[in-house]
């Protein structure tokens, strides 16, 4: 069926992006895989309607963030179970040691945020969404996005003071093209 093909093509084309978001939200590979699978399970039966209505990206995002928050509600009394079988693989920046440790600090700090705080961080900082788009994805008000962002950032600062310099309030869509011209200097 054309719809089936369309669903598969869409998901294949978006798999890299969807996997990244799922991992950032869930924090480990098994949970990320579950999150993505549950999202796609919800998407699949609605696919033809979704695709007819326009670009499905916003809809998928909405499904995934809702799934992320509600999965936690369902499982909040259960102890999270993780396995050592799957561990992160490296493919990051070039300053390895620094990158690695900072990344780990942030991963550990993110793990201590609430689901919603974590989602706000991913929406605003990773996906670069505006407050309005983030509010739409989570189905909350812009005011909630503002307060959740602020709480999440202060919690990150508290949890990982070593990351002090990297956490700053986002300017609402600054987006100015900064010319990164190299100044040269020598000092004796």
């Amino acid at each position, binding site marked *: 069926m054309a719809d089936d093909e369309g669903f598969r093509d869409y998901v294949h084309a978006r798999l890299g992006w969807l996997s990244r978001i799922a991992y950032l939200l869930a924090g480990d590979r098994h949970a990320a895989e579950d999150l993505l699978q549950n999202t796609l399970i919800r998407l699949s039966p609605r696919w033809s309607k979704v695709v007819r209505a326009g670009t499905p990206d916003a809809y998928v995002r909405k499904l995934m963030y809702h799934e992320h928050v509600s999965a936690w509600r369902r499982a909040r009394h259960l102890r999270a179970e993780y396995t050592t079988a799957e561990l992160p693989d490296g493919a990051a920046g070039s300053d390895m040691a620094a990158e690695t440790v900072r990344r780990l600090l942030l991963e550990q700090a993110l793990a201590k945020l609430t689901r919603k705080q974590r989602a706000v961080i*991913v929406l605003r900082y990773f996906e670069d969404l505006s407050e309005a788009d983030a509010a739409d994805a989570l189905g909350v008000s812009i005011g909630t996005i503002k307060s959740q962002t602020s709480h999440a950032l202060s919690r990150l600062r508290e949890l990982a003071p070593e990351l002090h310099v990297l956490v700053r309030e986002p300017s609402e869509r600054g987006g100015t093209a900064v010319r990164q011209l190299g100044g040269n200097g020598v000092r004796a």
Partner: protein
Amino acid sequence: MSDLKELLLAISDHAGVYDVTERAYVLGRRRRTRRRAAYSGATAVFAVTALLAAVNLPLDRPAPEPAVTPSPSPSAVALSACTAAELPTPAGVRPDEFRMVAGDPTGRILASRGKDVKGGDIVAVWTDGVPTAVGKVSDLVVEVTAVSSTGAVVLFGQKLKDGSRGQTQYTALAWVYQDGKVTRLKGDEAFGAAVNAAGTVVGMVGKNPVTWRDATAEPKRLPVPAGMTAGVPMAIADDGSVVAPLYQGTNSRLHLWSPDGSRRPLTSPDTIDGAPVVESMVGRVADGWAAGTIVTQKGQARQWYAARWNLGTGAVEWFGGPGRPGPVNPQGWAVFGDTAALTLVHGDTAVVVTGLPGYTPGTNRTAMDRPVVSVISPDGRMLAGSQITLARQVPSHRVLRWTCR
């Protein structure tokens, strides 16, 4: 490389790709069938149109490209192009599962974590571009962090702790691989950041900076003055001198611990172009120079410079480039990267570093398939690093070596 977006991107690089499409599709259809049966076709329409406000997907939005302005003045080093080739895959090893590349100060010895054809974790070593060793390592190993000119390879790993509800926390582990033998470095929460020709490793045990005289030695703490905290990255010279940052308040400065135990700061400028210097980071120490990065911040604007400190005279030099510096070597070479390209810079020379021939990476900011340079040889003529290539969104993790002429 230290804002939140970059770090989230680095975390998401570890996501892998979960191809759950078929499973989801089948389960989704089952659900659809069940629901249709139950509600006789009255499937909730779910106000799809209202939800589908056209949102431009940020991943497809090209980021502003900083201007590349290589100086037109002549350079003493005549290089015009850096071309990449895949490092040859050792026998019995998968070509597409390598993670990161680290190199020794000469650039001749390279190492990367990979997988063998049976799926076991290995570390592969190349000498002058030829595979020279493959060793089995623990499946806890994440990546190689450092290589010595004598072939010692420092490995970093993670083990999941028993987390409390909803938390994922790791314990850091460090090993040294040499001559086919893997030795775990002693200490809880151990991280090996750099290694010298004598096999002495510098790193962290918990929040304390330490050295391990060799792979079997007990960690020895480096003295840190009260009120300051040590951090990474760190570097160690062949004479045992260590350079590492000490944080005080929100700013970091580099310090040099000499083999006699004394410590002194390496002075960075207070400001560059009127912007206060907030961070100084080290990459390597060799030939009397420490090389690394200086970060300035004025308001929200951060600028990154490649820098090197002369350990004898105390002089410091810095230079900018297109984007942010990645690796910087003590001889004054640096690779800068922005969303558009990688550029090798030395003095007035600026050479574009292209990725795997025949492959075009995505241009968006979060593209995972751009080349990464992590090693620069002392003469700038050899670079090493890695690149993810995507075929139908399925990534292959490859290791590269560039020749610059």
